[in-house]
């Protein structure tokens, strides 16, 4: 094959994983969400270290106040709490699903869909309970 043809072909090829040519399905959406929530949780982990630093350097007056009550005061902090809690429940739930797949269990299409819906329901309920408890 002519090398110049190969080179021009490789230039016009779409990059993997070709998301745009697939019809969205629950399994693929949950897979993308697993990566997305993982990235959100990584950013939350960095923020947690910053929060620990802030806690260590706070003065005594600020330290004596209930810590999580300040979450109610701003829309951004409530939105962050909702997104981070949902991400945590979803990533944990879907992670357990992956661990079962690694053991060779739950691969059947029906089971994969059922476990996917279960993860979504648990994530939404867990988020509502935790966020409701904190606010």
């Amino acid at each position: 094959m002519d090398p110049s043809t190969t080179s021009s072909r490789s230039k016009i090829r779409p990059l993997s994983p070709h998301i745009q040519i697939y019809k969205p399905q629950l399994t693929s959406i949950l897979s993308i969400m697993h990566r997305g929530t993982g990235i959100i949780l990584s950013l939350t982990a960095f923020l947690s270290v910053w929060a620990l630093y802030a806690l260590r350097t706070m003065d005594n007056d600020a330290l004596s106040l209930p810590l999580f009550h300040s979450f109610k005061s701003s829309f951004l902090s409530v939105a962050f709490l909702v997104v981070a809690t949902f991400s945590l429940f979803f990533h944990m739930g879907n992670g357990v699903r992956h661990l079962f797949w690694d053991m060779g269990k739950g691969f059947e299409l029906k089971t994969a869909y059922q476990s996917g819906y279960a993860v979504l329901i648990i994530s939404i309920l867990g988020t509502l309970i935790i966020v409701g408890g904190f606010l």
Partner: protein
Amino acid sequence: MSLKSSAKGHVSWRHQRVTAIILLLSLCFILFTLCCQRHASGQELLHWLHHPAYKAFAFISLNTLFYHSFLGIKMVLEDYIHLKAIRQASLFVCFIVHLFFATFGSILILF
């Protein structure tokens, strides 16, 4: 630590699963404790962190979390960045950022 997934991909995969199991247990405990302490002040939370057992638990959890995070982000970067030079540079930056936060967080917990 190697940044090449082709050579040591199975090691990363195994480490990701082991850290996931450790995090599953530790995050359930942290979530439960934070829910019980939701009305606590900053002083009470710091007092809780002074206990040696909680200190050790927080140290292990934090470092496991950042190692798991590094392995996950590394996998995403390897899948989506196709130019080798940019991929290697991104992996290096990712490693340094995770190492910095894990070290800084550990210092805050232990001292």
